[in-house]
C-alpha cells in the first residue's frame, strides 16, 4: 500500500522534477562562476538589453536602453516582449525583405537606438539573439506568442489630438520623463536628440499609443483611456527627434539648395 503511494507521489512529482531541469533563470545564470558559450551569450544579451549604454555602446547613438521599451528586460507581455524567436524569419513591410532575427535586432540599433547598424556577426547581435532564443523557450515555433508587441487600440471615433495630449503628458508623464521629454533618472527620454529616431517603430502613433495605454504610467498601465493614450502618442510624435536614417542627407540638401 505504502509503495503504491510512493509510486503515485513519484508520478505526481515527475513534472515538477522535469520543470526543475528547465533552463536556469537569469538570476541563477548571473551567479554561476562558469557559463558555457550559449549561456554566457544569453547573459551578455541580457546585459545588453538591460544596460545598452554600457554593454552595446558601440552601436547605440542615443540615451535609451533596449529595456526602455522592452520592459522587464523583454519579459513583460504587451510591452514588446522579446520571446519572438519562433516568428523569424518573416517578411516585414518596413524593409520589404524576409528578416532573420539578426537583421531585426540590427535594425533596432539603427532606428530605435538611433545608432549604427552592426555587422551581421557582431558579438552584440549574436548575444541579443541568444537572449531572444532563451526567452522564447516554450513558445510554439511559428506562432505568435501571447501578448506579442503592443495591443492594438480600438477605433475611438476621434482623431488623436496633440493639444489634449500635451495636457495629459504634463499631468501624467512629465513627472518622470520631464517637461521637455528629456527623461529623468531611469525614465528614458521620449523625444529630443537622445531619443529614438523617426525611423523607429515607436515613431508610429498607433504603436506608441498601444504601448502607452498598456504600460504607462509605469506600474499603472491601462489607467489612461484609449483616447488619452492616442493623444499623448500624437503629442510625442510631433516633437523633435533624430532624422530617419533611411533618408539621404544629400537629397535633403539638394532639395534645400535647388529651387
Amino acid at each position, binding site marked *: 500500500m505504502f509503495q503504491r503511494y510512493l509510486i503515485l507521489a513519484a508520478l505526481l512529482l515527475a513534472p515538477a522534477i522535469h520543470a526543475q531541469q528547465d533552463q536556469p533563470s537569469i538570476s541563477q545564470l548571473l551567479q554561476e*562562476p562558469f557559463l558555457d558559450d550559449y549561456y554566457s551569450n544569453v547573459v551578455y544579451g541580457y546585459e545588453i538589453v538591460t544596460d545598452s549604454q554600457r554593454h552595446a555602446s*558601440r*552601436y547605440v547613438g542615443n540615451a535609451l536602453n533596449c529595456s526602455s521599451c522592452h520592459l522587464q528586460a523583454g519579459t513583460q507581455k504587451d510591452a514588446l516582449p522579446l520571446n519572438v524567436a519562433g516568428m523569424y524569419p518573416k517578411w516585414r513591410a518596413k524593409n520589404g525583405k524576409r528578416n532573420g532575427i539578426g537583421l531585426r535586432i540590427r*535594425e533596432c540599433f539603427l532606428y530605435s537606438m538611433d545608432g*549604427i547598424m552592426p555587422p551581421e556577426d557582431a*558579438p552584440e547581435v549574436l548575444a541579443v539573439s541568444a537572449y531572444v532564443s532563451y526567452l522564447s523557450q516554450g513558445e510554439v515555433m511559428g506562432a505568435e506568442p501571447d501578448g506579442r508587441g503592443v495591443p492594438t487600440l480600438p477605433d475611438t471615433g476621434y482623431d488623436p489630438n496633440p493639444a489634449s495630449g500635451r495636457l495629459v503628458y504634463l499631468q501624467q508623464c512629465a513627472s518622470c520623463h520631464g517637461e521637455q521629454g528629456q527623461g529623468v533618472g531611469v525614465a528614458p527620454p521620449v523625444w529630443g536628440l537622445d531619443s529614438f529616431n523617426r525611423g523607429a517603430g515607436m515613431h508610429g502613433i498607433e504603436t506608441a499609443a498601444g504601448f502607452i495605454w498598456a504600460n504607462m504610467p509605469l506600474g499603472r498601465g491601462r489607467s489612461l483611456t484609449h483616447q488619452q493614450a492616442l493623444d499623448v502618442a500624437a503629442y510625442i510624435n510631433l516633437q523633435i527627434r533624430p532624422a530617419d*536614417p*533611411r533618408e539621404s542627407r544629400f537629397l535633403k540638401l539638394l532639395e534645400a539648395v535647388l529651387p
Partner: protein
Amino acid sequence: MIARIARQLLREALPDFAWRRRLTHWRTEIFAGFVGAVLVIPQGINFAWLAGMQPEYGLYCAIFVTLFASLLGSSSMMSGPNTAVAILIGAAVLPLAGRGSPVYVDFVFLLCLMVGIVQLLFWLLRAGRLFQYISPAAISGISAGAGFLIVMSSLDSLLGLSSFQTTFFYEKLYVILSDAVDLVNPWSLSIALITITAGYLGREYSSRYFLLIAVAAGYLAGLVVAFIWPQPVTELEYLGRMPIEWLPWRVPTLTMEYLMISVSLIPYAVTIAVIGLAQSLVIVRELKMETDQDIRLDKEVYAQGVANFLAPFFSAFAGAGSFNRTKANQALGATTPLSTFAASVFVLLLVSALGPVLTWMPMAALAGTLFIVGANMIKWSDVQHYAQVRSELVIYLASFLCIVFFGLASGVTVAVVLSVTAFLLNISRVELREESTQAGTVLRVRGALFYASMETLSDAFHRHLQGDLTVDLQYATHIDQSAVDFFAREAAQMRRRGQTLHLLVNATQGHFLQAMGVGENVRLQALQDDAPPATIPFANLQSATTTGETR
C-alpha cells in the same frame, strides 16, 4: 651563487631608466612617440579584428603593452599589437567560443596570461639566446605567410561579406567567386579599392605614412558615401563607438573549468611566446647593431614577458615588437624608451579625442589598410635575397607554404624545426683533410667532434686499413665523450691490425683526453704551441702543423 643570480635577476627585473643618461633630444623622442601613436591606431584596430576581439582591446594593447615594455625595456623598440601574435590568438581561441563573445574574451586573456608566463620562464632560464638559432629566413617566411593570411582574412570585410573561414585559402576564393559574387557590396568594395589605391599612390610619396594616407582616403570616401546614400541602403559596416576607458582594470577569470579547457591553449601560448620573442629579439638585435643603444637581450625578454603577463589585467591582449613602427621611430631619431612611453600616452589621448571621428570609420577602409599591410609583408625581394643559399630558401619557402596551407601555428613550428635542423647540420659538419707524409697519413680535423659528427670521422677511418694514422685535433673546436670513446675503440682495432693511432693535440686537449680515459692504445702527441691563434684559415694549416710534427 644563487644569491648572485637572484641579485642579477632582480637588477634586470626593476626598471633602471639607464637610458636617461643618453637622453639629449627629448623633443625628438616625444615627436617620434606621437608618430608611433598615429601609426599604431589603425594597426591596433585591425589586429584586434584579426584576433577576433573588439577594436578597443587592440588599442589597449597599443597603450599598455607598449607602456610596460617601455618602462622595463632598455631599447627604443616599439612594442604593441603584432600581426602574427594577433592571428595566432584568433586561431587559438576561435574553436572555443564565438568571436568577441564574453567567453572568447575571457579565454583570450587567459591565453595572454599564459604567454606572459612562458616568456618569463624564457627569461628565468636565460633562453633568450635560443632565438638566435631561428634563422632570419624563417622569420621572413613566417612574416610573409602571416601577410598572406592577413590578405585572405581582409577579403571578407573588403567585399562586405560576413566573415567565414575555410580550411584552405583557395576554397575561400572559390566560394567567393562561385557563390558570393552577387552578395559583394559594391560600396564596400569601392571604398576598399579607394583605400588600397591611395595607399599605393601614397607610398610613392611617403614610405612612412602611406598607411595613414590610405586610412584617411578610405575614411573620406566612407563619409561621402554615408552623406549621399543612407546606411540602410549601402549596408556598410562602421567601426562604431569605442568605449575607451583610461584605466580598464579587469581581473582574468580563473575558475577551474576555464583552466581545464585552457589546457588546449598551452601549445598556442608557447607558439605565441616564441614568435613574439623571436620577432622582438630580431628587432632588438638590429637596433643593437645599427645604433649605440645599451641593449640587454635578457632585459628585453623580461620586458616582453611582463608586458604580456600584465596585459590581461588592463583589458589588452598580448603583443610583441613591431618592425614597421620601430623603423619609423628610428628614422625619426628616437634612441630611448622615452619615445615608446610617449607613444602609449599619445594613443590614449588621441583615441579619447578622436573617438567620435573613428566611429564612422568604414570597416571596408580598415580592410583595405589590412590588405596593404598584408601584401607588404610578402616581398619578392626576400625570396631573391634568400635564394642565394639553398638551405635558407628551403626554410623560407617551407615556412611560407606551411602557413598558407596549414595555418600560422604549424608554420611557426616548421620554421623553428627547420632552422634548428639547418643549424645542427651546419655545426655537425666536420671538415676532414687527408695528407700523406713520411710518418703515415695525417687526418686534419676542423669543426666540433661530438656524437653527431662521428659518422663522418668513422667513414674516414675505415678507409685506412693500413699504415699509421695521425689525427690532427688542434682545430677541433669541441671534443666530447663519444669522440673519446670512438678514438679508444678505433685505436684498439687498429692495434689488432698492427696500426697505430696518433692524436696531435694541444696541452688542454691532451689533459682532457687522458682524463676522459682515451686509453693506452692512443699515442698523444703534444703540439709545441699550446694556444694557436684561433683565426687561422684552413689554407695556412699545413705550415702551422708541420712545426708540431717535427717535434
